[in-house]
């Protein structure tokens, strides 16, 4: 407590110095008595208060900005109007707050400027006796210690430690800070400036506090003024706050947070805590060893849930599958042993054979691709424009004799044919459609013409995401929308997580089915033209040189859908989510952003660099 006494105060008030600290006289003052004695002076005092009403602003700026130098001067000022504070504060009504502010307005000319306020306030100080000040302080000290519960109605703002400073300060006076607003609260400290409470909604905390009647509502400035009058060294509080220093025996908030996290130490350390969730079932828990950050993964499953979902796992496990599929996805519903699929696969593999053999020849003896003979080129069906040299020795690739005979698509096909030939010739599936899983792997993928192939190509791609997580990081699910959107909270609960996943799964499923539907109509042309498939695959330009077919069979609504154009997404510039890109781009806000060249200064300077380089090389 000794720390709260400041040297400047001791100098200006030698009589009072140290007295209040130990509270030697311990006079029990009746609040009313004090108020009465002060009422006579009220007019004068109000004037004083008006004069200095603005000074606390400067004071609070000090608290914010950390320029500690002005603190002492302001403290002297603040001191002068202490009795006023007594009057108003002890009248136990919020209404007194407004007159003060109003008075401040009246005398704004003086108060608006820091130094005149100080001078005039100093002049007034003379009229107040030290005794009165001490009485006032002692009185408040008692109130603070005994029955003061403070609630902060301030949102936490980065780089604003005012709340923290005040909290520390009030704690040194012995006041208790309430985490939540309830009837016990006696003082509400707010960052808002409200003159008319009737404008507030009934659920607003200030309105509720106002209605309670007995609660005081102080602005941050008022609280700072009060604390200075109580000779609390806000400067030091601020220093502590900035350094993140804990004030021993004083930082209730830290205690509360510690206790919330670790539990009370009075409890039996072996006893389980009610506020923790303990794992009972199979679980995954990835947590911060230092327990500073929230856990990264908290997952738990009941054994029966795991068993009930044998087919579709609740968590990823290896489900190998076949046909190039993701080892964690498995073949799922697709039975690769279906005759239909065996035949299709065999045809596909046949069509792709020359391309595969060409690759073998290219990389048979060296990791640098060999230059191939023209006959091989022809074999691959490619009209390669790249120079090639005839090489007699490399017409057929080496195929090693293997240890085992490995089952393959050809064998499957022959088996099928021989088993079926007893009855009838195997029929090729009608229309020979392509379904989902052929698109990502098939060499023929590029040969499917038109919109369907575009759609398939662009949508199969797994896209980047997680861009925003530098600020708002998450365990959140894969990208939905355009990937720019800030990720949502991590540690999603299990249901929410699986819901989100379902959305993605359904989304991709929809894409795939729509792609395969449209692909179906084009499939015919593709399969009829097996040579084309091979030539496409063998062609270095294949991704784009493919001749695309027109698709009259496409349904009109699919044509109207802009291909792959993401409609919903997040705009980094306007910081909003949108449902339609088209609509968003035409909003006033976005256009206003787009038209401002200042936003693009960095981009323009880079473009200028490139243009200069181009100009040099133009000649």
């Amino acid at each position: 407590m000794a720390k709260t006494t400041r040297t400047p105060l001791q100098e200006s008030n030698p009589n009072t110095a140290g007295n209040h600290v130990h509270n030697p006289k311990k006079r029990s003052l009746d609040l009313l008595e004090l108020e009465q004695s002060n009422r006579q002076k009220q007019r004068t005092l109000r004037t004083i208060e008006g004069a200095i009403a603005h000074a606390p602003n400067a004071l609070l700026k000090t608290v914010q900005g950390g320029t500690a130098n002005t603190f002492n001067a302001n403290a002297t000022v603040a001191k002068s109007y202490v009795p006023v504070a007594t009057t108003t504060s002890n009248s136990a009504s919020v209404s007194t707050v407004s007159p003060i502010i109003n008075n401040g307005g009246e005398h704004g000319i003086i108060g608006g400027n820091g130094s005149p306020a100080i001078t005039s306030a100093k002049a007034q100080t003379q009229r107040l006796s030290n005794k009165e000040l001490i009485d006032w302080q002692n009185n408040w000290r008692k109130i603070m210690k005994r029955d003061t519960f403070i609630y902060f109605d301030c949102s936490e703002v980065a780089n604003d430690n005012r709340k923290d400073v005040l909290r520390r300060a009030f704690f040194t006076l012995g006041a208790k800070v309430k985490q939540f607003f309830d009837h016990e609260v006696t003082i509400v400290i707010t960052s808002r400036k409200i003159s008319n409470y009737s404008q507030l909604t009934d659920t607003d905390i200030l309105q509720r506090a106002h209605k309670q009647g007995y609660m005081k509502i102080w602005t941050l400035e008022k609280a700072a003024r009060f604390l200075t009058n109580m000779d609390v060294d806000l400067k030091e509080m601020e220093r502590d706050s900035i350094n993140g220093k804990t004030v021993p025996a004083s930082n209730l908030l830290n205690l509360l947070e510690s206790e919330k996290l670790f539990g009370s130490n009075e409890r039996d350390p072996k006893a389980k805590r009610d506020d923790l969730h303990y794992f009972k079932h199979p679980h995954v828990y990835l947590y911060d060893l230092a327990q500073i950050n929230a856990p990264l993964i908290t997952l738990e499953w009941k054994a029966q849930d795991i068993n009930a979902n044998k087919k579709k796992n609740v968590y990823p496990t290896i489900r190998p599958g076949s046909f190039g599929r993701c080892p964690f996805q498995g073949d799922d519903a697709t039975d690769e042993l279906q005759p239909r699929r065996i035949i299709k696969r065999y045809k596909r593999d046949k069509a792709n054979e020359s391309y595969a053999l060409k690759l073998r020849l290219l990389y048979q003896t060296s990791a640098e691709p060999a230059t191939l003979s023209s006959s091989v080129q022809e074999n691959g069906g490619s009209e390669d424009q790249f120079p090639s040299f005839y090489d007699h020795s490399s017409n057929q690739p080496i195929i090693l004799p293997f240890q085992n005979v490995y089952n393959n698509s050809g064998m499957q096909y022959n088996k099928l044919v021989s088993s079926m030939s007893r009855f009838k010739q195997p029929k090729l599936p009608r229309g020979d459609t392509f379904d989902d899983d052929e698109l990502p792997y098939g060499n023929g993928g590029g040969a499917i013409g038109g919109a369907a192939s575009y759609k398939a190509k662009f949508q199969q791609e797994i896209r980047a995401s997680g861009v925003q997580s530098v600020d708002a990081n998450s365990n959140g699910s894969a990208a939905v929308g355009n990937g720019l959107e800030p990720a949502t909270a991590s540690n999603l609960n299990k249901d929410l997580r699986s819901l989100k996943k379902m959305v993605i799964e359904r989304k991709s499923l929809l894409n795939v089915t729509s792609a395969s539907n449209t692909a179906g109509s084009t499939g015919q042309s593709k399969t009829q033209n097996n040579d084309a498939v091979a030539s496409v695959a063998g062609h270095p330009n294949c991704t784009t040189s493919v001749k695309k077919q027109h698709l009259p069979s496409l349904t009109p609504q699919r044509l109207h859908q802009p291909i792959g154009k993401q409609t919903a997404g997040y705009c980094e510039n306007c910081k909003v989510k949108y449902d339609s890109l088209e609509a968003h781009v035409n909003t006033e806000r976005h256009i206003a952003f787009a038209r401002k060249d200042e936003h693009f200064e960095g981009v323009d300077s880079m473009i200028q660099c490139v243009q200069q380089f181009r100009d040099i090389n133009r000649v």
Partner: protein
Amino acid sequence: MDDIPAEIIQEMDDLYDRVPQLSSRYKLLDKIGEGTFSSVYKAQDLSKVSSKLYPDHFWDKNDKYVAIKRIYVTSSPNRIENELKLLELLSNSNNVAPLCDAIRYHDQVVVVLPWYPHEEFRHFYRDMPIKGIKKYMFELLSALKYVHSFGIIHRDVKPTNFLYNPMLGRGVLVDFGLAEENEELYLPDLNYRVYTNDQGEKVCSCSSPYAHNKNTSHLPLISIQNGQLNVRGTNELSAAQSENSMKAELSKGYPKHETRRQRRANRAGTRGFRAPEVLMKCSFQTQKIDIWSVGVILLSFISRRFPIFQSMDDVDAFLEICCIFGIKPMQEVAKFHGLGLDMTKIPGFHSEGYPGGLQGFVKMLLEKEVDHGTLPEYSIAFETLDYLTQYDKQLTPSLGPEDEEDTEDKIRMYKQAVWDDHFWCFDLLSKCFELNAYKRPSANDLLEHLWFKELNEDLLDRDQRREDHFTGVVE
């Protein structure tokens, strides 16, 4: 132009409208790609300036096209500037697409790059022979070596962003939209990212208490014991003890109402290609995250599966990695990043990793294909499977063919080469998948790997020839 779908033509017309300067320099031909942040069009370079700037990048000397990347207007100018800056900076390598031109009109920015006649990954990953895989990886790692040397992390290494032409054996890295430049990453020695903790263990700097916000770091140090306040400093020993017991409690369960903040880190990238340290939100990520992605691509090749990881979200991605590499190694690396990992009673997870390691995993995947007969008769994957069924019988690979003149026994030599290449390939694969980023080799280290011996020798030969040529001129 007749065979381009109407919507694409409409899109291209829209782009002409949005960027009026475009039509005088380029003629849009087709749409060739679409990503999260951009669409890409193939175009003709009307002024021929772009193709003159970087002649080596126009692979096809007869058809010099450009690729026009339309960056979506929802991207922030800072992000666009970053991409342009990096492209400019990285324009001196054969393995990175250089910036040929850039135009802005209002919020629409287009970037012009060379157009590369490449092949899509999914068209060749099932059929690429081992030496072809080697060349692909060599090109990719060369690109990354160059990029990493500038202190840049690409962050989005995946087949779509590496345009490769198997016929030419050439590849270029594209899309620096997510790339991250960091002065600290310039340093060849990234040791500062590791420090030795109280227990004398080397741990990642992200687990250092100094990496966290000062204001919260004191939190666990205060406690109330028997109504008495306990602060480290006043009663250090008991405070530390109670702190430890409190932490032990929190390792068994989590608060029902979480008040602590989330661990934060950049996790931009593509699902399925994110390194463990990205998933663990390490705040000291390095170029090594790209090396992990290289490993994912190599695993796709050798196991003939794409994609390898499904990773619907980061949690799934984490568990998928656990499936292959095991709980214990993951616990170790979690600890390295200051995290505890508890995975108990979960069926399907091996504590030491998939039996037989990566080889066992690949073998199992190929065997499943054989079970279903989903590989073609001519599949090159049988070479890998054959290698894996007998690789434990031979312990060391040969260091290249001993008798180069022996053309008679071509098959024997070929077989030997297949064996050697597979051996070194799996060795390289396991190095890319080093869970601990600190121990994971750099692109530069990997290029020196024995698997790439023949390619490095080729490079030496070429340099030698060039040198001879020059000395010849001098004489």
